[in-house]
């Protein structure tokens, strides 16, 4: 059996196990076992993949397999990975693993919570291993719908509103996607849904011009493309901790990945026509997200807007269409996934203790909960791009790559986007200063405790990954750069 199918089978088994389990401890047991298996599997896959590449494997995708599913409609269940999807799988399994620990004590309806959580992660894994447009789209939607219940039931604040808004906007995006996918399928002759096969054919220019923006918008909604990012702040702010982690950390990456793999790879001429329009929108995302974060007072909203800005940077870098910038985009996905998960985990833990996320009501937390506070500082520094942590590597690559375009328009966009770095520093440092340092504002807070063991597991794992990516980025960027090449060579300048 194909190793990639395990990424779908393990979550399925987890679902069955969860369904059968009778107590909270059994639920936790199933979750930890499953999440660890997934993590081990993705680490093994990465090592194996690198090994095969070093041994001289030159195919675009490795571990490919295909089973005919709906023969009359040319729908197959086909899997395959390249460096980009391997990196994404690794990221997802890290987030699922740490997310399990971050929601260790979640009440009530623990079993149901993890059922939907696992279904969501199954969708994510399935999306990244698929090379068939139909299954890709199917897993994409599988990943979206559990969000509604996860936010609606276990969320906080205006959860019902946020859940409905998020679901409808993302599903609206998938409506665009569906028609775009049908357009690609019939545009490429209506004989195959396999990405790699379609890439070898030529979709007529007229079709590309119509369907490129549909696909790009469809995925862009999930990638928080301005002005379709509105679901993101509300959704992230209302979601329970692990769901915010998974959503900002992984789900939003589906958007960037899809834009790159489906829209730009399959419709390069469409990308050439529409690239500039979307570039303007993503530049707005980057700057607008950063500025919006400055005025927020709710910790989660700050981070949500910061996510808009950073995910905007992913799409921005992709649209710059140079090899370096696209490698940077993938690095940024990884880096943002890790650090934003860390951020949301810490915010959730702090909120669980102080019962407020308002920056103005907190202060001096460093004295009370040093472990969480230090974690928060590290996450903040990664976010604002301190060298040595993952954010720096990613943003540096993005901006250098973007500046390689030597026309005025691209360079101006790059310059505008770089201002976000400064603004990021403003809101991060301000929040860190307000809530961690200074005097304790609320005497009640003095009674609070520091992180428990399960929280420490989640935080330490994520910090290790953020630092690891920052200190030794080369193996990762090699892994990615290799796979970016075939897609870039497709694009016409």
């Amino acid at each position, binding site marked *: 059996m194909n190793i990639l199918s395990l990424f779908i089978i393990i979550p399925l088994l987890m679902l069955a196990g969860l369904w059968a389990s009778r107590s909270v401890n059994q639920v936790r047991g199933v979750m930890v076992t499953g999440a660890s298996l997934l993590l081990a599997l993705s680490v093994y896959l990465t090592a194996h993949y690198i090994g095969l590449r070093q041994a001289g494997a030159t195919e675009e995708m490795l571990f490919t397999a295909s089973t005919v599913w709906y023969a009359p409609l040319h729908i197959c269940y086909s899997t395959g990975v390249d460096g980009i999807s391997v990196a994404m799988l690794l990221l997802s399994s890290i987030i699922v693993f740490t997310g399990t620990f971050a929601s260790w004590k979640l009440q009530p309806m623990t079993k149901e919570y993890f059922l939907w959580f696992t279904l969501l992660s199954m969708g994510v894994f399935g999306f990244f291993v698929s090379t068939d447009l139909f299954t890709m789209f199917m897993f994409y939607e599988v990943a979206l719908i559990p969000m509604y219940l996860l936010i609606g039931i276990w969320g906080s604040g205006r*959860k019902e509103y946020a859940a409905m808004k998020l679901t409808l906007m993302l599903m*609206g995006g998938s409506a665009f996607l569906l028609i775009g996918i049908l357009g690609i399928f019939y545009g490429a002759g209506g004989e195959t849904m396999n990405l790699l096969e379609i890439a070898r054919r030529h979709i007529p220019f007229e079709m590309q011009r119509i369907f490129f923006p549909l696909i790009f918008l469809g995925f862009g909604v999930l990638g928080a493309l301005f002005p379709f990012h509105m679901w993101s702040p509300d959704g992230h702010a209302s979601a329970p901790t692990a769901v915010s982690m998974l959503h900002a950390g992984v789900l939003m990456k589906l958007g960037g990945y899809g834009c790159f793999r489906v829209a730009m790879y399959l419709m390069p001429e469409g990308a050439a026509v529409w690239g500039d329009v979307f570039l303007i929108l993503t530049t707005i995302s980057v700057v607008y997200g950063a500025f919006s974060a400055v005025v927020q007072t709710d910790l989660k909203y700050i981070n949500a807007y910061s996510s808009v800005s950073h995910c905007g940077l992913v799409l921005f870098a992709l649209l710059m269409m140079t090899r370096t910038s696209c490698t940077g985009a993938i690095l940024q996905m990884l880096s943002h996934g890790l650090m934003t998960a860390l951020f949301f985990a810490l915010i959730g833990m702090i909120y669980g203790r102080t019962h407020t996320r308002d920056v103005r009501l907190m202060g001096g937390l460093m004295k009370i909960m040093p472990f969480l506070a230090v974690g928060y500082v590290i996450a903040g520094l990664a976010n604002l791009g301190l060298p040595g942590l993952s954010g720096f590597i990613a943003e540096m690559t993005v901006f250098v790559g973007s500046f390689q375009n030597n026309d005025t328009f691209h360079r101006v966009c790059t310059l505008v986007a770089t201002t976000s770095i400064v603004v990021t520093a403003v809101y991060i440092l301000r929040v860190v200063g307000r809530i961690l340092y200074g005097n304790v504002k609320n005497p009640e807070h003095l009674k609070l405790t520091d992180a428990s063991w399960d929280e420490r597991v989640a935080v330490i794992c994520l910090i290790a990954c953020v630092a690891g990516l920052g200190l030794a980025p080369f193996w990762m960027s090699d892994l990615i750069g290799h796979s970016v090449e075939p897609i870039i060579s497709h694009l016409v300048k």
Partner: protein
Amino acid sequence: MDLIAILHMHAELSLTAVFILMFLLDLFLPTPQRHRLRPMACILLALQLLANLWPEEVIAFGGMYHSTPIASVLKSVLTVGTLLVFLQADTWLQREDTRYKQGEFYLLTLSTLLGMFFMISAGHFLLFFLGLELATVPMACLVTFDKYKGHSAEAGAKFILSALFSSGIFLYGISMIYGTTGTLYFDDIPSRLVGTPLQILALVFFFSGLAFKLSLVPFHLWTADTYQGAPTTVSAYLSVISKGAAAFALMAVLTKVFGPMAGQWSQMLCLVIVTTITIANLFAIRQNNLKRFMAFSSISQAGYILLAVLAGTPQGMASLVYYIIVYIAANLAVFGVINAIEQHTHGQIEREDYNGLYRTNPKLTMVMTLALFSLAGIPPFAGFFSKFFVFMAAFHSGYYLIVFIALVNTIISLYYYLLIVKAMFIQPNEQPIGHFRTTVPMRISLLVCVAGILVLGILSGVYQLLNDMSLL
């Protein structure tokens, strides 16, 4: 005329046999034994199903009766649906005020089913009309089955009046066809259709007649009141079985008989599809009564089914029948849950009544959620596949814009389906409906529906089979 030909109509003959047996049982079964009627009906219908499982092509009476393989598959599907409805009707038929006339319920339902069979496999407009009437008139009696309820009587009156009206229009359309072509045989008409204004009018009248049955906008006005007033079991039957049969018959006649006028009817269909889906969706949002809600939901589903008709290709035919199968599973699951709760609580069918249902009845809630997700077209449930294939068929025939509008509408439909999910899972409630166990027949039918929802999409065999048949 070769009278032996009648023996070839296996499905209809065996269904008539079931009908007669039920009639005799109803007449001669002594009162203490009458409770046996309910299992007997299910068993007989199941036997009928088994006897007709093998799809085949039958032509009898010089082409007056023409049953294609895919039509016989659809007949089996409708029989399964009816069987599920019979199972769901069990609790309701045990009630004091319906118990003494349970035999009538089965007889009326079986005769409508027989009518649909004739409609599906008609090769002549007269037989088609006969089937249509046979499927409609007993339905009116079914709708008023709870005759002491004011709502039910009102529903019946609305149903029969609009049904008669549509039959009249339909008949008028047929007479125009006869007047311009000189024949009513499906096989002979196409060569004589040239698209004169009178023939276009005939097409429109024919279409309007069926549109009443399918409750397409603007012929949908009876639907909500009828669904609300009719007994829940009958609403379920009306929304899936009768709709499925009418959709298939519409597609068969439009492609087969009106094939030369495809240019005209596809324009008409485009307009009707867009208005049907959009208006039904907008009205569904405002409904609090779940039966009215399901009425509008089923109107919009009919719009999606029509996308397959619009495609007008073998691919469209396969996806149409597939859509009907999946739709039967999902819709009957929803109606089953509504029915169970209504019977248990003596009439709670408002959305607010469902608040907090998950805490007391997690299994029923899960069934309902899966079914609603399937109706909304969420993977990995079967509804996703059926919607995707219908869209694919229409897209393949070049109706990009219509597919796009339909897709945008799925978002609206997702909104109102989620409202019910929200009520059950999220909305707090001090006094939710208490925990209860559904009856065994109901549980069987819900299990079959859920199995259908979960399995029909993942296993590609069903679609494959339909595709092979519609190529023939």
